[in-house]
């Protein structure tokens, strides 16, 4: 374990100052990635800045317009326990709850999952398909950006020095809409996703898809929003031809690697399989609303 200072600020300003004050300072939410990296010698921060005592960093709030605000350090377990959030965004919640074990769920956060920037992060495809945004705070004040804008590459974000994510925002939902997330792992639990697929659909009163967002994880250096895959579904009711187009578009968008978790060929095939299955689940969920 490297030597570092531990700081637990109680305000955003204090946290920003602490991040700027120490070389290579790192933010701590649940620690389920950071502490692993510290122990393995893959990170040597001058300071670890614990966000959890900053007001707003933890908690789930339904806004007047029907959207949700989720503190970036809120645990996956707390997210899974929120009834309203689970009803509105079953895909985002199930994706978040797939991160690691029950113990990891007691700590893991959306902010950590996104900023750790593993291409295989489970919550990110669901958040991107949901068109979620982040509220970022830093030395220049507050700004809001789409989740996909935070990714720079494996292990890297677009956040500037002193910046961190305070909250995530999910937009208000049309009545007949739902999302779903699926991942492929070798066991039934505990594995890093070999492929992840998040699909978010909006239907009209007749059950025709009016908006479709398809996001794939673990098949490229960053999580992808595959426009062509979503386009394949718009205007229909998930007929077989549309699903085949979706499958093909998902596969075409893949740019995966061979590693100890999966091969290029396998990941590509599975991307199509999971996109289909997630789309079907999202559609079935939306249809009954």
């Amino acid at each position, binding site marked *: *374990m490297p*030597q570092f200072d531990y700081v637990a600020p109680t305000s955003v300003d204090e946290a920003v100052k602490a991040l700027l004050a120490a070389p290579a300072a790192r933010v701590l939410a649940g620690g389920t990635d950071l502490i692993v990296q510290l122990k393995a010698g893959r990170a040597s921060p001058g300071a670890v800045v614990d966000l959890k005592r900053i007001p707003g960093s933890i908690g789930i709030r339904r806004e007047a317009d029907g959207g949700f605000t989720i503190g970036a350090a809120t645990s996956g377990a707390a997210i899974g326990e929120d009834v309203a959030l689970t009803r509105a965004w079953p895909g985002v919640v199930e994706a978040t709850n797939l991160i690691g074990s029950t113990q990891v769920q007691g700590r893991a956060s959306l902010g950590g999952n996104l900023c750790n920037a593993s291409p295989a992060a489970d919550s990110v495809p669901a958040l991107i398909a949901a068109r979620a945004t982040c509220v970022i705070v830093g030395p220049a004040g507050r700004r809001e950006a789409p989740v996909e804008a935070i990714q720079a590459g494996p292990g890297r974000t677009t956040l500037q020095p002193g910046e961190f994510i305070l909250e995530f925002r999910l937009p208000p939902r049309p009545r007949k809409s739902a999302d779903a997330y699926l991942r*492929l792992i*070798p*066991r*039934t*639990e*505990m*594995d*890093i996703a*070999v492929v992840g697929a998040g699909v978010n659909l909006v239907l009209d009163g007749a059950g025709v898809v009016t908006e479709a967002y398809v996001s794939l994880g673990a098949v490229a250096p960053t999580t992808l929003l595959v426009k062509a895959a979503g386009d394949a579904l718009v205007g229909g009711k998930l007929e077989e031809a549309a699903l085949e187009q979706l499958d093909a578009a998902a596969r075409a968008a893949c740019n995966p690697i061979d590693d*100890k*978790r*999966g*091969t290029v*060929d*396998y990941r590509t*095939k*599975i991307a199509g*399989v999971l996109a289909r299955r997630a789309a079907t689940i999202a559609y079935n969920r939306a249809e009954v609303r």
Partner: protein
Amino acid sequence: MSDVLDRPATAPQFDSVGTRPIRPDGIDKVTGRAAFGADFVMPGALHGRIKRSPYAHARILGIDTRKALALPGVKAVVTGADFPDLDEELIEGGEAASSMRDLAWNVMARKKVLYDGHAVAAVAAVSPAIAEAALDLIEVTYETLPHVIDVEASMAPDAPLLHDHIFTSGMPEKPTTPSNIAARHQFVRGDVDQALADAEVKIEARYTTKAVHQGYIEPHACVASMTADGQGQVWSSSQGHFMVRTYCAKVLKLDISDLRVTPAEIGGGFGGKTTVYLEPVALALSRIAGAPVKLVMSRDEVFRATGPTSGGVIEVKLGATKDGTITAADVLLKFQAGAFPGSPVGAACMTALACYDLPNFRIVGFDVVTNTPKVAAYRAPGAPIAAFGVESAMDELARKLGMDPIDLRAKNGARDGVKAAYGPTFQNIGFLESLEAIKQHPNYAIPLGPNQGRGVAVGFWFNVGGESTAAIHISEDGTATVATANPDIGGSRASMAIMAAETLGIPVDKVRPVIPDTASIGYSMLTGGSRTTFAVGMAVVQAAEKVVAELKRRAAKLWDVSADQVAWEGGKAVCLDATKDVAPMTLKALAGQSARTGGPISAEVSLNAQGAGPGFATHVCDVEIDPETGGVTVLRYTASQDVGRAIHPSYVEGQIQGGVAQGVGWALNEEYIFDAEGRMENAGFLDYRVPVASDLPMIDTVLIEVPNPRHPYGAKGVGEVPIVPPLAAVANAVRAATGVRMCDLPLSPPKIRAALDARAT
């Protein structure tokens, strides 16, 4: 709960044997009070750390420890130069002989490092942080060499040579040049080539497996304290504290009795803790530092630098008549030994065909060194690998013959009077019973749906006896202590208490088992080979019988009769002399009078148990495949096994269930993955994928009792057989579900998907 099936004529009534009392160490284990290796605290202990090679194969040109020694807080630094040179010496232990020189070179590298993770130096310091910093200050100069991992690549004539003193043993003529092939084993009967040529139905196939780890959850840990005069104490979790004592004494060239080893509770072994890695290093550091040293492995070190089992190649040819009589079997095995000779290929050869009664066979096995960690025993060492190949081939043969797979085994199966492939003639075995039990089990009749399949496989393990000591001491109030010298890795101490209680005739909770240190009880071979309940139990029963004999003598003295006029019934001495009007005396009453009648009552027995009963098992596994992802779900699993006598049925069931779970993991997802430099890529539980709770269904067990007449209560070893059948049971189920024969383990989803795609094209 399982079914316990007895051969009807011999089902006796016992008071304690066959019951399910709460284990005596139970409360400590469920409250967190039990002390495992890393829990022990010795005041003033320093923190030890080991520096390890980052190269799979390299010469050590020099090690400079001066900067490390100069770091404030560092109290000792050792390298290979601080360990004595040893001549070659083989020690019997566990199920195979171990080379002490190879062990010493494995514990601390000398001229070469032979695998990524091989220990090259160690430090002891006043804090973990200083010890870590000191490791970074040790400068090792390496000359890297080409490395070899794959077993057949290592057998090739141009393979990088690990050692220049290995000349393949077991060859018709001793080779003139060294190689990586340490040994060739061969077992032959009849004329297999002719029989294969004549066979009406033939199967020929090749199977491969990868190296896997025992996966015990407790990393190796010890505390050692050595004084300048060479006397030492060790506290460690191991499968044999006498083994730890012997091995440390050999590696450090000490007198054996100068070492005293106390067993900690052990958090899993499965064979992987039948040797030492840390203890000699901790002792060496402690002697220099003048203080105790605590050494604990990280999980990464456990994977990279302890003893997985071999990966291997299994080639099988089978020949049979059209009516299903197997006339010929030809098996070729090639096993990785890791950095030093000693894979379990010999045992694999002996077990490969043990379930079958065959007129013609040839089994050949090669032990091949590779630049991977030196393999250690893993639960029925070698047998699961051989069984994967043989039982997969048998499944293919059954299909070709149009026979039910159980019928094929029953027609050709080992039974009493059959001469085993490895030599002895079987008596009192329950193989056919285990086959029948599965055939009749409800699992075998459950209808299967789409993408589902059922696989059957059988397995065998010899089980061993060996040197064992047990002592029984009667306290003044008639309660008893039974002391045995074998670490309890699976609940055996409960069985020791049961057997002692049964023999003494007192309730189980009046008998407390303990496992004393090496100075306080006689020698015992380590806990392995499924021997504890059989062999140590035999010593326990004999000690109890000696105590009973002594109690009868004491009663005789009190009653003024001859000793042969006293019987022992239901825990009491009974006078057989009708002229004496005396009531029976309980053990408690006799104990209370022990001072008057001759002194304390106790007995210690050391023996070398012979007559261990081999174990046989039949397993059935149902799976469902997701054809799009290649994912395998285990729907059902039923295991039947001849257990001799289930002394404590719950723990017998537990052994079976645990072995099955390890076998399923071995079949589906576990493997050592190496990068191009020969470094393990998945040295953690994230990517070394052992089964988790949601991966498995309930595991049904059927305990068949064909008692072993050589053991007082009929016990046979049970712990190892269960891991032998699952690899093929799962593969055969996948074959049934998909129509595709998978010949390479593990059956991870990408491989199944690729196999399905290949078949479709």
